[in-house]
């Protein structure tokens, strides 16, 4: 699965997610990637999120929208909302993987509970990184 989230010069957010699914999958199985709210969500009021990982738990957790809800209804920061979902909620239902997210203030989070996530970010403040492993 691949994905991107962005905030533009006008403060608008967007999220995109695309996947080839799981090797040897059958019966027309669909994961979270193409389900709005599960693997992909964007709302200028809160955040833009793209997920990657084991699709079934991500679907049951309505993961991407959950991050947005924690910000909108509970007042959590992007960082705290992402960590709550990835490190607390998903592991309880055996959800392995991660997500990338950005908010209306230009904060960016790349959070995962697996051994690694192919990832990268670039910000107008000069920060730029690409990484694979947890310890990077």
């Amino acid at each position: 699965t691949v994905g991107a989230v962005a905030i533009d010069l006008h403060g608008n957010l967007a999220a995109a997610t695309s996947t080839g699914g799981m090797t040897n999958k059958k019966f027309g199985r669909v994961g979270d990637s193409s389900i709005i709210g599960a693997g992909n969500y964007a709302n200028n009021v809160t955040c833009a999120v793209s997920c990657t990982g084991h699709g079934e738990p991500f679907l049951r957790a309505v993961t991407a929208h959950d991050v947005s809800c924690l910000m909108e209804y509970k007042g959590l920061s992007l960082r705290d909302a992402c960590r709550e979902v990835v490190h607390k909620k998903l592991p309880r239902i055996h959800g392995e993987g991660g997500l990338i997210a950005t908010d209306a203030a230009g904060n960016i989070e790349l959070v995962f509970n697996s051994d690694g996530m192919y990832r990268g970010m670039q910000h107008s403040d000069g920060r730029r990184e690409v990484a694979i492993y947890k310890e990077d």
Partner: protein
Amino acid sequence: MKPFGIAIHGGAGTIPRDSLSAEREALYLEGLDRALSAGYEVLLRGGSALEAVREAVVELENNPLFNAGRGSVFNHIGSHDMDAAIMCGRTLEAGAVSGISQIKNPIVLAETILKHSDHVMLIGQGAEEFARLHHLEFADAGYFYDEFRHQQWKEALAAGRTQLDHSLPANEKMG
């Protein structure tokens, strides 16, 4: 100047450091770097967030290393089932597609659905018919064939398991 930026991912899972050769690791990092640049360039010239995420994902879809578009894994019958979604935070408009096998860039189809369909999500043959109407680029099975992916599929088929792209099989012992 207001802050702007982009983040990308190319999948997550069990990726032990010693599972990738230095050469293959460099290829992954280069692929991520290219996708990041593609999206950031859009933002730098004042383009929209929607355009930036599409461009970054198109770049990843065109890279056979990543499980999407050209690098999609094989399903049970040795074909491909691709899914994609895109959402605009300003308008809350969304476009999604599932179960397609011949579209070169599924994320472009998702964006076309967002912009030109009354619906949010299209699937299978109907989605490909919609793509044809909007002159999107199709690709044949040869474009999506990758020897590494094919080997992954044959092993999964023989073992009767379904697996994530970046994860070791559940029954694989380490150490």
